[in-house]
């Protein structure tokens, strides 16, 4: 009799003690982290004002005061948004592997294939160092060259993190415009490039690799919810750990524009009425290498100073979508003529988007 309660107690405490830590370890901590995130995001504005005007005793409305307040406000804001967005995006990405996308695109007819390729390009996990194996892998599996191009254009151009940041910072309309125009460019670029039968402009070794027989395929993995959450957490650590210097630079540039650049100057340079504003934005954007999160503070400051939406979007797309490092990597598989056509078609698409939105908005 005396042993029973002890046993029951032990069993109960074991049962009671095990679920909480394993629930947390299985990803339940996310539910606890969310309120903390919301609280930080809510108090950020007040803290930043206090830091700039209270702690550092700067004068509101002065150049330096406004620039410093922008900096203190944007650093936590962009980092918080980035953390949440990367988490959600990486979580969703665990459902779409490049292998699944490749199988879905194999032997698709032009048109529908280009449309699917563009849409998949938004969400597929993709880093520029994977561009080459992915490119060859797609072609080997029978994905048409044009469809592969739609994918390759959409993947960097409609950056999933940029999309999330635009939505959070500027509302759904601008996010939708960004996604819609990016998809159209990817769709049309792939369709055009597919028509031009550019296969012979692939490097020789690529053409050989396309003919070589396959050696084994990977097995599709099945992930638990806990594994997906763990992967999303790792994604946040990797990406936020890697991009914070770009964000800092972006926010410094944004803060400078916000505090010091006069509105009339920016409205003249990147305004609707300036005919060269769009090509100027693209020309400045292409050699700049940053990432989605790093450009956002600059976009924020430009729009705040009266730059036209079309020119600003063109600038952003040029920075994210047409990056020099990726072009250099793709040069390994494409002969100069093909790579020039690729860059040319994408740049043309961005210019059109810029002019279109400057005209209609």
């Amino acid at each position, binding site marked *: 009799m005396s042993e029973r309660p002890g046993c029951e107690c032990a069993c109960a405490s074991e049962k009671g003690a095990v679920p909480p830590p394993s629930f947390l370890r299985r990803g339940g901590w996310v539910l606890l982290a969310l309120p903390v995130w919301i609280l930080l995001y809510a108090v950020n504005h007040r803290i930043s004002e206090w830091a700039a005007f209270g702690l550092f005793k700067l004068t509101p409305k002065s150049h330096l005061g406004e620039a410093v307040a922008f900096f203190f406000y944007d650093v936590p804001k962009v980092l918080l948004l980035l953390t949440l967005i990367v988490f959600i995006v990486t979580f969703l990405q665990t459902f779409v*592997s*490049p*292998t699944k996308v*490749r199988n879905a695109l194999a032997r698709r007819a032009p048109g529908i294939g280009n449309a699917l390729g563009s849409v998949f390009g938004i969400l597929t*996990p*993709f*880093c520029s*160092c*994977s561009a*080459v*194996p*992915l490119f*060859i*892998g*797609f072609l*080997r599996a029978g994905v048409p060259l044009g469809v592969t191009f739609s994918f390759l254009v959409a993947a960097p151009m409609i950056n999933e993190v940029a999309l999330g940041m635009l939505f959070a910072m500027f509302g759904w309309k601008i996010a939708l415009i960004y996604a819609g125009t990016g998809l159209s460019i990817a769709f049309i670029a792939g369709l055009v490039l597919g028509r031009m039968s550019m296969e012979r402009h692939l490097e020789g*070794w*690529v053409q*050989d*690799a*396309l003919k*070589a*027989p*396959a*050696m*084994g*395929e*990977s*097995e599709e*993995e099945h992930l638990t919810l806990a594994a997906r959450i763990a*992967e999303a957490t*790792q994604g946040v650590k990797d990406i936020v750990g890697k991009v914070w210097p770009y964000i800092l630079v972006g926010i410094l540039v944004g803060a400078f524009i916000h505090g010091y650049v006069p509105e009339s100057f920016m409205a003249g340079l990147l305004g609707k009425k300036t005919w060269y504003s769009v090509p100027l934005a693209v020309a400045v954007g292409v050699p700049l290498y940053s990432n989605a999160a790093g450009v956002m503070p600059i976009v924020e400051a430009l729009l705040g100073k009266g730059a036209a939406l079309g020119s600003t979007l063109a600038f952003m797309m040029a920075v994210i979508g047409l990056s020099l490092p990726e072009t250099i990597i793709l040069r*390994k*598989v494409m002969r100069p003529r093909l790579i020039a056509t690729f860059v040319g078609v994408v740049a043309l698409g961005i210019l059109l988007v810029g002019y279109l939105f400057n005209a209609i908005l």
Partner: protein
Amino acid sequence: MLIEVFGPGCAKCQTLEKHARHAAEQSGGDHQVVKISDYATMAIRGILSTPALAIDGQLKSQGKVISSDEIAALLKG
């Protein structure tokens, strides 16, 4: 066992190679770690995203850096 690490040489690929070497040492036995950075080979092996890892010719993971513990578990069974 033969552990192959595929990657063009970016930071992630080097981390995965380090994890693979660590796992091979930890688990004892006769393991060999090979780094493959040739794109043509990756294409033939069906690799779409790097870094990737294969054990005895079987592709086990791609597109992410798995930990040395995970690699050790793969070596066991």
